[in-house]
C-alpha cells in the first residue's frame, strides 16, 4: 500500500505540471524563487509563488492605529511579492503570485491541495539555535502537512 502511494506521488513528481514555491520574502527568497523557476522550467510547469502573511497576535486587541500599520505592511509585502514574481516571470512562462494570510504551513498545504500541485518548494536557511528551540522553522512543518512531495532548498553558503 505504501509503495503504491509512493508510486502515485512519484508519478505526480515525474509529470509535474504545477509547482508551488513558498517564500518568506527575506533576502534568501529570490534565490529560492529562481531555483523553483529552474525546476518549473525543466518540467515545463506553471509556477505559483506563495507568501503567507501571519497576523501578529497583538492585532486581536488592536486599536485603529495598529490596523493601519498592518494594512501598510500588507501592501508592502504584496508589492515585494509582485516584484519577485515579475523577476521570476522572465524564466518561466506561467508564473503567478499568491498572497495568503494565516498559518504558513496550513495555508501552503491548503493551496497545494486546491491547485492540485505536484511539488512544493520551500527553503530552510539553517535557523539559529533559538529559532530551532522555539520551533520557528517553517520548512519541517510544511513537510509534515503537505499533500504532495516537498523539496526544501538550501542556498549554498547560507
Amino acid at each position: 500500500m505504501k509503495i503504491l502511494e509512493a508510486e502515485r506521488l512519484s508519478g505526480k513528481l515525474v509529470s509535474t505540471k504545477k509547482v508551488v514555491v513558498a517564500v518568506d520574502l527575506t533576502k534568501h527568497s529570490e534565490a529560492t524563487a529562481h531555483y523553483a523557476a529552474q525546476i518549473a522550467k525543466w518540467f515545463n510547469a506553471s509556477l505559483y509563488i506563495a507568501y503567507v502573511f501571519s497576523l501578529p497576535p497583538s492585532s486581536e486587541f488592536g486599536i485603529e492605529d495598529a490596523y493601519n500599520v498592518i494594512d501598510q505592511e500588507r501592501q508592502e509585502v504584496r508589492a515585494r511579492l509582485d516584484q519577485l514574481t515579475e523577476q521570476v516571470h522572465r524564466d518561466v512562462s506561467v508564473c503567478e503570485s499568491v498572497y495568503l494570510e494565516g498559518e504558513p504551513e496550513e495555508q501552503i498545504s491548503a493551496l497545494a491541495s486546491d491547485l492540485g500541485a505536484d511539488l512544493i518548494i520551500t527553503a530552510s536557511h539553517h535557523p539559529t539555535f533559538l529559532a530551532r528551540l522555539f520551533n520557528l522553522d517553517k520548512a519541517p512543518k510544511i513537510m509534515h502537512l503537505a499533500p504532495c512531495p516537498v523539496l526544501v532548498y538550501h542556498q549554498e553558503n547560507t
Partner: protein
Amino acid sequence: MKPLTIVTQVLDYLDLRIKIPKIVCLQRKRSHVKLIAPRANVTPFPVVVAQSDYDAVPLGGMYWFNGQLQKRYWTAPTPNPETPEPFVRLITRRALDVQDTASALTDQLSFKKNPRNDGRVISANNRSPIRRFLIPIDVLEVKPVDLKPILKVAERFDAEITLLHCYEIPPSFGYAVGPLAPMEVTLHRDMARTRLLKLCTEVRKFFAKCRYVFVVGSLPVEILRASAILHADLIVIALSLDLVSHSWTTRELLDELVRKANCSVLEIPLGPSV
C-alpha cells in the same frame, strides 16, 4: 627505524596516493567523446587529455596550453607536434573515483541530440538543475521494486543516484557474549554490505547511473557527510522506504536533514490515504 626513513616512507606513500592519473580521451566522432581512465585513490587531480581535437575541452573548464592558462573553451588553439598536451582541470572537485569523474566529464563533453539544437552543445541553462541524488536506504528492508518510484524521478531529472546504507549495530547484539561476539557483528555488517552491492547491481539493470556507499555510524551524520563528499544536489527521503534506525524515526531524520543539510532535501510523503 631512522626518522628520515619514516619520512621517506610517508612521502612515498603520499606520492603513491596523489599520483596523477592519466585519462586518455578518445574522440571517435565530433558528437561523442569517450574517456578511459584508470582508477585512482584521490581527487582533485589534473587530467591530461591526450587527443588531437582540442575542441573537446570541457565546458566551464580551464586548461594549460603553451604555459598559459586558457579560458576559451570551444575555440582552443590549433595543436602541433611541439606543443604540450593541454592540461585540463576539472571544475567538479568531487571525492569520486576517476571512473565516475571521467563519466561526468564525458557527460560535459557530450553533444546531446536535441531536435531544436542539433549538433550544438547543450548550454548550462538547459541542464537539469538536479544531477546527483543521494538516497539513504535500509538495505535490509528495501527491494529494487521499492526504489522504482524514486528512480523514475531521477530519470526525469537525468540524474545519477547514490544509494547510501548506514550500518548500525543492532541492539540485540548487546547480548552477544564471548570471544566470537565481535565476529558476529562483523559478519552481520558484511551481510548488509553484500546486500547493498546486490541491490545496486539489480538496480543497475534498469537504471545504469547507480552507485552505492556503505557507511557505519550515526544515520543523519553519515548522510550529511556523504552528501557533502559526493556534492549531492538532492537528498531524497521517501517515507515509504521506512528508514530504520534505533535512534531516529524517519520524521525526526527528515527534520534534522532539513535543518543541517547543505543541499536540498526532497520528501516524498506517504500520502493522505495511508
